[in-house]
C-alpha cells in the first residue's frame, strides 16, 4: 500500500488561538446533546418507552428489555452439538481440552451407548461421560471450536450467562446440550429466548 502523505499546517493563527476550533467543537457536541437529550430526557427504561427512541439515534441498549443481537461470528457461550438422533456428536477426543489455552475443559470418556450401531466407525464408539467447561476460566478464544474434528463444540451468540456461584458457572454436558437446543436455529435473541438453568 502506497503511503499518502497529508500535510496539515496546524500552526495557523486560527488554530493557534484555539477559540475558533473550540467553538466549532462545542457546537458539534451541542448538536448531539440536543438530538438525544431533547428526545430522551424524560424516557424511563420500560420496554414501551425504550421503543420510542429508535436505536438509530442512540448507542445505548436498554438491556434487560432490549437485547443486542450479536454478529454471526460472535464467540459466546459454548454448546455441544447433537446429531439428528439427539446423540452427542462429541467423541471425547480431548482435542478441545488440549487446545484450550485456559485449560478450562474437563472430559472423561467412556464407551458410548450407541457404539453398537456403528460397528465400522470407531469414532462413534467413544463419547464423553463427563464434559465440563468452566466458563469463568474460559477466555472465549474459540480454539476449542477450531480444534474439534467433529464439529461438536461450538461457540454461540449467547453473552448473558453470569452466574451467582462458581458451581453454576461450570457447564456440564446436559447444560451444553440444552444450549444447543436453544441455539440450533441461530435465533436465540431474535426469538427472545432465555437460558433456563439455575444461575
Amino acid at each position, binding site marked *: 500500500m502506497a503511503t499518502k502523505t497529508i500535510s496539515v499546517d496546524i500552526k495557523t493563527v486560527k488554530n493557534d488561538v484555539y477559540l475558533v476550533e473550540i467553538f466549532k467543537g462545542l457546537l458539534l457536541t451541542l448538536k448531539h446533546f440536543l438530538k438525544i437529550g431533547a428526545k430522551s430526557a424524560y424516557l424511563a427504561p420500560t420496554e414501551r418507552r425504550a421503543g420510542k427512541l429508535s436505536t438509530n439515534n442512540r448507542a445505548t441498549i436498554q438491556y434487560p428489555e432490549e437485547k443486542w443481537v450479536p454478529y454471526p461470528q460472535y464467540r459466546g457461550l459454548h454448546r455441544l452439538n447433537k446429531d439428528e438422533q439427539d446423540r452427542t456428536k462429541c*467423541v*471425547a*477426543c*480431548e*482435542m478441545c481440552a*488440549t487446545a484450550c489455552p485456559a485449560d478450562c475443559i474437563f472430559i472423561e*470418556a*467412556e*464407551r458410548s451407548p450407541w457404539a453398537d450401531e456403528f*460397528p*465400522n466407525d*470407531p*469414532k462413534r*464408539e*467413544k463419547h464423553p461421560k463427563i464434559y465440563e467447561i468452566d466458563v469463568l476460566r474460559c477466555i472465549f478464544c474459540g480454539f476449542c471450536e477450531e480444534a474439534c*474434528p*467433529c464439529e461438536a463444540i461450538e461457540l454461540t451468540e449467547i453473552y448473558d450467562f453470569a452466574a451467582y456461584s462458581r458451581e453454576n458457572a461450570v457447564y456440564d454436558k446436559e447444560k451444553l446440550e440444552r444450549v444447543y437446543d436453544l441455539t440450533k436455529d441461530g435465533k436465540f435473541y431474535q426469538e427472545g429466548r432465555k437460558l433456563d438453568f439455575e444461575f
Partner: protein
Amino acid sequence: MPKIKLNGRVLEVEAGKTILQVASENGIEIPHYCYHPKLSVAGNCRMCLVEVQGMPKLATACSTPIMNSPPARKIDGEFDMVINSKSEEAAAAQKSVMEFLLLNHPTDCPVCDKAGECRLQDYSYGYGRGYRRAVEEKTPKPKKDLGPNIALYTQRCILCSRCVRFCDEIVGSHELAIANRGCHDEIVTYPGKPLENRLSGNVADICPVGALVTKDFLFSARVWNLKKTSSVCSGCSAGCNIQIETMAEKIKRIQPKNNENVNSYWICDDGRFGYNEIQDAKRIKYPRKKDQSGNLSQTDLKTAIAEVVEKVNSLKKIYKPKAIGFLGSAHASNEENFLLNKLARKIVGSSNVGLRAAEITNDEVVFKSGFKIYGDKTPNRFGAKVILGSENAQEIYEKIKNGEIKALFLLGGIPETGFLPHEEEIFSKLELLVVVDYLDSDLTQSADFSLGGKNYFEKQGTFTNVQERVQKFNQAVSSQGSFVSDVEILQELMVAFDKSWKEIAVSEIFNQLAKENEFFRGMTFYKLGQEGMLKQ
C-alpha cells in the same frame, strides 16, 4: 572395523550389526515399524528403506548388516559403506510407504488410544505426504475382541507382525497369526482360542499403531495428559521396571520400562493390571485404636504413639525387653525394615525380630525368551531377610504361642490380605498388637493400634529383588489413605522411644542402611539410578 558414513557422519562400527541398530545407537533416526530390538527381523514394513551407495536398489536398514568391503572397492578410498536415509530417493520411498500404509487406515486419531505416541502419526508428520490422493472407499474392518485384556482395531493395523512375532518368540504361545490376503489381511487368533497368555498386555505396547489396545486403558485418558513416574513392580520378586502413568492423582496405566538386567521390554499382565486392586482397596485414613471392649476409635498419630510407648514401657518393666516382638515384612521396603530392625534391636533392645511374608506360591512361569514370573509374590523378601537377619516368622509365632512375647510390632503391606493363615489365633494371645499397614482389613481391625501407612504407589523406597538387585520405586500419586508414610510413622515411634533419633528422609535412611549393612555396602540412593545395583 568397518568405517562407514551414515547420513554424513563418519562412524567406525562393528561388522554384522544392522544399519538400523547402528543408527539408533548413534542417535540417528531412521523411521521403522516392524523392527523391534527384541524380536526377529521381519523386514516387511519397508519404512526403513535407505540408500546404500553401490547397491542397485534401496535397502531395508533393519535387515542390512554393516560389512567390510575389499580395499579396492572402498568408497572414496576409505569407507566400507556410505548410507543415506535422507536422500531424495529414500525420502520418496518413505513417502510412498506412508501412503500405502495409510491407504486403508481409518486415521481416527481423535479417538485412537495410541494418538500422541503413535509411529504412524509421528512419521506422517516427519516423512509423509501430508494429504491423501486416493479417492476410493476404505475397506471397513470392524473392531475385534482378541482376549480378556486385548482388543484389536483391525483397520488400524499396518501388519508389521510385531505382535505375531512377540507371541511366537517371547511368549512361545503362537496365539496370533495373519490371515487372508491383500487388503483383507488381518491379525487373528485361532478359532475359539483367545489371546490370553500372561504377557498379552505387551502386544499393545509394541504395536506401533493403535490397533492393539488394552481394554483396561481404552478410553480412559489421552496419553499426553499422563504424568509418568518410573518405579518397580511389586507384583512378584522379579522387580520388573515399570512406568506408572497417572492423571489427576489416579493411576491410568502401567507400562514396562526397559531394563535389560531385569525385564527387558516386558512385564506380565498381573503387574500391568494389578494396580486397580491396590488403588481401590479399602484404606485406613487415620490411626485407630481398640479399647478394652473391642471398639475401634479414631485418634491421631501423636496420641496413638504416646500410648503405644507408654504401654510398651510398662510391659518392658513387667517382663523383659525380650517380650516385645517385631515382624518386618517382605512387602515393605528396605528402609522400612531397616527402621523396624533398628527400633527393635537398638531402641527397645529386643532381638525377637522376624520376617513376615506371604507364602511362596507355585505359580511360576518361564516363557520362551526366558522372561520369568516368579512364584514368590513378595517384592522384597531378599532385602528384608538381609536386613532383619531372619528367614521367616515361625520363631516369633512360637514365642507368642508359648507366652514369651507379649507385644508385637508388625509391618503389613501384603496387598489384599490382612491375617496370614493361623495368625488370627496366634495374635489373640498378645497383650499389645501394633500394626503399620495401609489396608483396612481384619488384621488392622483387630490390632490394638493400627497406625496407617501408604501403599507403594504413594511412597518412595527401595526393593531388593530375587536376583539381589536393589532398585528404587517412586511415589506416583498422592495418598488416598494416611497422610504419613510408613517410614515417617516408624521414625515417629523411634523418636517417641528415644529422643536422640533424628527424623531423616528416605534417601538418607538408605544411605545409612548402606553404611551399616554388609550387603548394601558401597551403594547410595543416588547411585542406584535407573537400573538398580547388585552387591558390590
